[in-house]
């Protein structure tokens, strides 16, 4: 029998006491006065309990109200304006003469009564919880009085009732330094003015969560620069959650800079010269109107029941609302692509206040960034018109940031960072055929799992077989893998995990076929080698040539001979190393490649300069053996990391070697003729590591 929780015991006690009192009152045959007295006592106790409860509720309401003042809401911010400053500017109140862009939004609460099922499926999604008020229901991180330290700054975390507080360097002071071109972390912590700031808002809830504190001067929200990792249940400095230059500055993010556009509905970055920034939003998180557009008119006309039944029975689109499922593939995908894409505002519509709404052609207001060779040859008139605009904008942007494209795309124009699936998908032949949209595979309201939101009836190969049914008839002839094996799943070969972000590898949404030539050209591992980590690129090229008549590319000696899992983890760039380490931790590649040999090479990565690579290596190693628990933290000091690297490599050396000659291709595994690890070769590859600075913009 399990333990009874104190809360359950209290409830049982209360019920028992209530029954006892009732029985006593009924059975005691009390005389009038005693009965009245008992009634009075019970009434007083009840009223006192009620008042106590009310007081607690009022305290909570006041706390929430204070929080609401700090986070972006619908209303313009009311700020006392210095009369002298107002006279100088010439206006006493903010200019609100134009139409309020948030006027047409009604919020998801209004949608619920007519669409309870869709409301429910949305409510269970990570879209809803992307941005939340920092309440106990939303905050996942621990605030237990601990102090977090990184890059010369310390932060003290505390929970006060239902509120979360951080003592930190005054973010307004840091923002001022930034405005003056001074890196805030260049000023020692002792000299920074410190403030207790209430955490007012959260971002994320699925993989990681970060937090925001409010400016004391205007409506800006500053990032509390730490991430709470949901799976690991720990804090890490924000910059260590991404592939960023390891010696780079601490990140300093302001919510309205970019988050507001996609992590809220109808986000508006308003700025008044006197009141400062006043970011506003119709609703926090990605809610109903984020995908369906402003619903005020829809709600108004559908208060008429006759109209409602007419629309429901006719099964026709309601012109007062956008239903992405009824749009054509391109328009439907653009609803998602507004946020799940890399786009740049077109200057003209931005200046005139024209914003994208679901159902619009995204390209009217934004240039969808493409870096593929075929993008330049697009026959679409709008894209042809936009091409010079894009080139000009890119040229300007790359003056400040020469690696702008490299931070987002592989050399052939395939997106390499997470959250930008639209840019990948539109390069696919399936999309160009006019049929593929995000909703071909995903469903926001009929998904099996909020993770990925894949449509319930389009799991596994079914999404692809909608348009390619013939492959199912003789699947093994196409895949050359057993029908039920992971090698026969469409997406494993045509959508391999070549995108990186959120501390993991993610499927590419540019649907294409594995190609050794492309791997050689781009440095992006192909699907074959992402599963067969112990095989070389030459091995894959042989099979792709034999099975699919692909021309065999000319490969360098290392590419012909050395396992891709080893070659990329020793010589690759930071993303390639992180991706290899991630794949070494996944069950399918481990089954296909055997895994004991990986320990040695994962150990090698434990002292990688990039925290993200070390994180992946540590996680893969932790899954490698239950007998060898890994006392390793990827944020340990360099000396400790180096010690762990040495120890781990020594521990796994025997598993990587092959003195009994069981490994068919010793050269691929960097083993000498005696089955021992070829140290000189390992050293040579490690020295060839691609150490160019990587800064992936997830």
């Amino acid at each position: 029998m399990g333990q009874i929780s104190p809360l359950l015991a209290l409830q049982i006690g209360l019920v028992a006491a209530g029954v006892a009192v009732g029985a006593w009152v009924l059975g005691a045959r009390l005389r009038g006065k005693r009965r009245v007295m008992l009634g009075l006592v019970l009434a007083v106790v009840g009223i006192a309990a009620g008042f106590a409860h009310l007081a607690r509720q009022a305290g909570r309401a006041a706390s929430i109200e204070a929080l609401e003042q700090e986070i972006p809401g619908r209303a313009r911010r009311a700020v006392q304006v210095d009369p002298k400053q107002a006279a100088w500017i010439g206006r006493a109140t903010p200019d609100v003469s134009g139409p309020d862009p948030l006027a047409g939004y009604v919020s998801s609460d209004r949608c619920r009564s007519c669409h309870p099922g869709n409301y429910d499926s949305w409510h269970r999604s990570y879209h809803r919880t992307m941005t939340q008020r920092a309440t106990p229901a939303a905050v996942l991180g621990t605030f237990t009085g601990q102090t977090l330290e990184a890059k010369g700054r310390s932060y003290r975390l505390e929970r006060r009732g239902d509120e979360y507080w951080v003592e930190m360097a005054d973010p307004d002071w840091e923002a001022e330094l930034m405005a003056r071109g001074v890196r805030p972390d260049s000023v020692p912590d002792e000299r920074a003015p410190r403030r207790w700031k209430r955490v007012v808002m959260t971002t994320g809830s699925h993989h990681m969560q970060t937090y925001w504190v409010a400016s004391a001067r205007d409506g800006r929200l500053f990032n509390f620069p730490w991430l709470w990792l949901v799976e690991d249940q720990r804090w890490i400095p924000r910059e260590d959650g991404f592939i960023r230059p390891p010696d780079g500055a601490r990140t300093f993010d302001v919510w309205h800079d970019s988050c507001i556009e996609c992590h809220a509905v109808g986000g508006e970055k308003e700025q008044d010269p006197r009141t400062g920034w006043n970011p506003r939003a119709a609703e926090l998180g990605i809610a109903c109107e984020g995908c369906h557009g402003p619903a005020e008119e829809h709600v108004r006309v559908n208060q008429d029941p006759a109209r409602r039944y007419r629309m429901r029975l006719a099964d026709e689109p309601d012109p007062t609302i956008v239903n992405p499922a009824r749009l054509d593939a391109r328009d439907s995908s653009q609803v998602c692509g507004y946020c799940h894409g890399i786009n740049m505002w077109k200057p003209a519509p931005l200046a005139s206040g024209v914003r994208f709404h679901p159902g619009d052609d995204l390209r009217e207001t934004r240039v969808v960034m493409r870096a593929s060779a075929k993008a330049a040859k697009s026959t679409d008139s709008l894209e042809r018109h936009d091409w010079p605009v894009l080139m000009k904008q890119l040229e300007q942007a790359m003056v400040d940031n020469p690696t702008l494209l490299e931070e987002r795309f592989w050399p052939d124009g395939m997106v390499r960072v997470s959250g930008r699936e639209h840019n990948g998908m539109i390069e696919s032949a399936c999309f160009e055929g006019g049929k593929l949209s995000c909703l071909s595979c995903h469903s926001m309201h009929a998904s099996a799992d909020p993770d990925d939101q894949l449509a319930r009836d389009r799991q596994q190969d079914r999404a692809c077989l909608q348009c390619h049914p013939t492959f199912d008839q003789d699947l093994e002839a196409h895949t050359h893998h057993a029908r039920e094996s992971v090698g026969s799943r469409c997406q494993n070969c045509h959508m391999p995990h070549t995108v990186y972000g959120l501390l993991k590898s993610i499927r590419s949404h540019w649907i294409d076929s594995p190609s050794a030539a492309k791997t050689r050209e781009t440095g992006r591992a192909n699907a074959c080698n992402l599963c067969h980590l112990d095989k070389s690129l030459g091995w894959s090229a042989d099979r792709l040539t034999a099975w699919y008549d692909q021309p065999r590319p000319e490969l360098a000696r290392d590419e012909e001979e050395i396992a891709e899992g080893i070659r990329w983890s020793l010589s690759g760039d930071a993303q390639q190393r992180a991706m290899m380490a991630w794949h070494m931790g996944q069950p399918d590649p481990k089954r296909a490649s055997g895994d004991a040999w990986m320990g040695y090479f994962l150990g090698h990565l434990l002292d990688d300069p990039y925290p993200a690579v070390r994180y992946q290596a540590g996680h893969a190693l932790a899954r490698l053996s239950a007998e060898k628990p890994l006392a390793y933290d990827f944020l340990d000091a360099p000396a400790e990391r180096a010690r762990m690297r040495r120890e781990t490599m020594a521990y796994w050396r025997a598993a990587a070697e092959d003195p009994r000659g069981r490994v068919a291709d010793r050269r691929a595994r960097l083993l000498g003729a005696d089955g021992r690890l070829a140290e000189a070769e390992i050293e040579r590859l490690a020295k060839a590591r691609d150490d160019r600075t990587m800064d992936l913009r997830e």
Partner: protein
Amino acid sequence: MTGSDPTLEQTAAKHLAFGWWLVVASIALGTALEALHALKLGVYLDVANETRRLLWTLAHAHGALLGLVHVAFATSLPKLAALSPGGRTLASRALGAGSLLLPAGFFLGGVFVYEGDPGLGVLLAPVGAALVLVAVVVIALGARRRGRA
């Protein structure tokens, strides 16, 4: 009861039986609904089906209440001195029909639902409600003091 009126007695007996059977049916429905709760069946409990849950609950509650109204009508019939035979017939028929249509409308409206809107079966509910209203108004008028009859 003052003097025997076979028609009145027949009407009272009919409503008494009808009322109790309506209570039986409604309690049976209520028991079935409780079973749906106990078995946690999504077809009844999912948020997407909250309209169905509301309508079937209304069917159960209205059925039970109207059954008791029938019982009350049957037992109070002899005392409704101001109720004419024509009024009695009208009240009896309206109450009978309304008591079937109102819960049936709620129940059928919940069988097929359109997200937040009930199925077309719910159209029976306002008809039933109007008939019940007519019936209780007639009965209330019939309950005036004898002297005014």
